C-alpha cells in the first residue's frame, strides 16, 4: 500500500457564534495516499472548506490530529508543502499572468521550495493555452482563463499537496468540464496529492480516485467511495456504466444522510 500523504484522525472543530457554538466538524478521519486524487463532497455548510483550512494550518482543530507528509500543518505550511486553490481565482489585478503565476514561488523564500523555474512556468502556461496571454492582466481574461492561471500558479509551486476549494464553482458547465480534464492532465504529470472540495457529484466522480462523503453539520465522514475508473481519464468514460454506478452510489449516500 502506498504511503499516506495526509492523515486525519478524529478532527473536530467548532466556532464561537453570537448565538452559541457552531459544530463545523466532528471526528473526521481519513487518509489520502501520495499522488492520489481525493474529492470531498457534502451538503452546504458541512465544513468542507473548514477542513481545508485545518489541513493547511490556517485554523487549528479543537481535537484530533492532522499529519501532512510526516509534518504538522504549521510545519508543512512553513515549508510551502501546500498549493492552495481558492474558490475565486484570487489573482492580483496589478500583476500580469506571468507575474501572478510566479507569485507564490517568490513568497517565503526561506522555505526552501523555489518551485518551478521561470522558463518552465512559461512552458506550463503555453501548454495550457495561455502562451499569448503572458503579459495580459487578469481583468483582460475570461473567467475560464483566469481559473487556468490560478491552476498554473498552484502547479508552478511544485508543492506535494494541492488543496482545492471548489475552484470551478463559478464557471459554466462546458468550461467547468474542460477545466476538470485540464487539471487531471497537469496532475498526472506532477505526482502531487490532491484534496478537492466540490459541490458537484459528477465532477467528484469524473476526477477522483476516491470520494469522501461528509454528513450535514457537524460534518463527519459517512462513507469513502472508490471510483473504479482507470487513468488517464477521458470524457468518454462519463458514458461508462462504472461512472454512472459510482455517481448513483455517491448521490444515494448524500441523499440518505440529508434525509436522516
Amino acid at each position, binding site marked *: 500500500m502506498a504511503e499516506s500523504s495526509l492523515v486525519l484522525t478524529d478532527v473536530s472543530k467548532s466556532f464561537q457564534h453570537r448565538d452559541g457554538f457552531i459544530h463545523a466538524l466532528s471526528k473526521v478521519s481519513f487518509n489520502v495516499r501520495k499522488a492520489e486524487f481525493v474529492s470531498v463532497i457534502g451538503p452546504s455548510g458541512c465544513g468542507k472548506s473548514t477542513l481545508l*483550512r485545518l489541513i*493547511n494550518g*490556517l485554523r487549528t482543530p479543537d481535537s484530533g490530529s492532522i499529519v501532512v507528509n510526516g509534518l504538522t500543518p504549521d510545519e508543512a*505550511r*512553513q515549508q*510551502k508543502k*501546500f*498549493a*492552495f486553490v*481558492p*474558490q*475565486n481565482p*484570487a489573482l*492580483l*489585478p*496589478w500583476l500580469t499572468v506571468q507575474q501572478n503565476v510566479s*507569485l*507564490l514561488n517568490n*513568497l*517565503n523564500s526561506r*522555505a526552501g521550495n523555489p518551485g518551478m523555474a521561470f522558463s518552465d512556468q512559461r512552458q506550463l502556461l503555453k501548454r495550457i493555452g495561455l502562451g499569448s496571454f503572458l503579459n495580459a*492582466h487578469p*481583468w483582460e481574461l475570461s473567467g475560464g482563463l483566469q481559473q487556468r492561471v490560478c491552476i498554473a500558479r498552484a502547479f508552478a*509551486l511544485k508543492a506535494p499537496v494541492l*488543496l482545492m476549494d471548489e475552484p470551478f464553482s463559478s464557471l459554466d458547465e462546458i468550461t467547468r468540464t474542460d477545466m476538470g480534464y485540464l487539471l487531471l492532465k497537469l496532475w498526472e504529470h506532477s505526482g502531487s496529492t490532491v484534496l478537492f472540495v466540490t459541490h458537484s457529484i459528477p465532477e467528484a466522480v469524473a476526477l477522483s480516485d476516491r470520494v469522501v462523503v461528509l454528513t450535514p453539520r457537524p460534518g463527519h465522514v459517512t462513507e469513502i467511495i472508490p471510483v473504479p475508473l482507470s487513468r488517464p481519464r477521458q470524457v468518454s468514460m462519463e458514458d461508462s456504466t462504472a461512472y454512472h454506478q459510482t455517481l448513483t452510489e455517491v448521490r444515494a449516500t448524500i441523499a440518505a444522510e440529508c434525509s436522516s
Partner: protein
Amino acid sequence: MSKTNHSARLTTNMQRARKLLLLIAPLMGVTVFLVSWEVYVRVSGIRPLILPRPSVVIGHIVEHPAFYWKHGSFTLLEASAGFFLAFFVAVFVATLMVHSEFMQRATMPVVVIVQSMPVVVLLPLFLLWFGFSPWPKIITAMLFTWVPFVTNALTGLRSVDTSTHELFKSVNATRWEIYWRLRIPNSLPYLFSAGRVCVGLALMGAVVAEFFLSKDGLGHTAYVAYSRLLVEQLWGSVIVLAFMGVTIVLLLNAVEQKMLYWHPSQHERNHPAK
C-alpha cells in the same frame, strides 16, 4: 471592402474626437463658469465692490504676474509640504493600526480629536512654538488633510480580498510580504481618492494660516486686499488659488490613471460602456 475601411476610419475618427473632447472638457467647464459669471455681473449691474467681473480680475492677474507667482509659490510650497507630511504620517499610522488591534484602539480617539479640533484657534500657539517660519502653515495644512488620509489608508490596507489573503498565508508569507505586495497596492485607489479631497484641504489650511501668521502667500494677499478693499487683488488671489487646486487635481488624475491601470475605475475611464 471599401465599405469596411470607411466604417473603420469613421470609428477611429469618432474615437479621436471623443478623446479630444474629454481632454478639453475641464477647460470648457471652467470657461462656461467664467462666462456665466461675466454675463451675470454685466446684466445685473452689480457693483464691482460686491462682485467684480472675472475679465477684470484676470486682467489684474495678467498685469501682476510676478506678484501672484511669488505669493502663489509660497502657498503651493507650504500646502505641498503639509499634504505630503500628512500622507506619510497617515500611511505610517494606518500601518500600525492595521497590524495591531491595540494600536487601532489607542489611535482612533486621537484621529477623532484631530478631526474635531478647531485648528484656527491653535494658530497663535503655532506662532509661539514655531515663530514666523513656514512650519505653522505646514502644520496647519497637515492637520487639515491628515484625517481623510488616515481613514482612507486604513480602509485600503484593511480591505484586502479574503481569498487572496489566505493564499498568501497558505505559503506562510511574512507580514512584510503581505503588506508590501498585497496591502499597499490594494490601498492605492483609496489613497488617490483621499488625495483629490486633500489637495483642496491642504491649500485651504495653508491659506488660513497665512491669513493670520504670514507676510507671504495668497492667504496674506487676500487678507491685505480684504482689509484695504482691494477687490481685484482679493478675487485675483482666490482665482490663482482655484487654478492651482484644479491643476494639481488634474496632475493627480493623470498619475492615478498611470498607476491604477488595473483598477476597475480606470477600465471604465479607458473603455467606457457604449
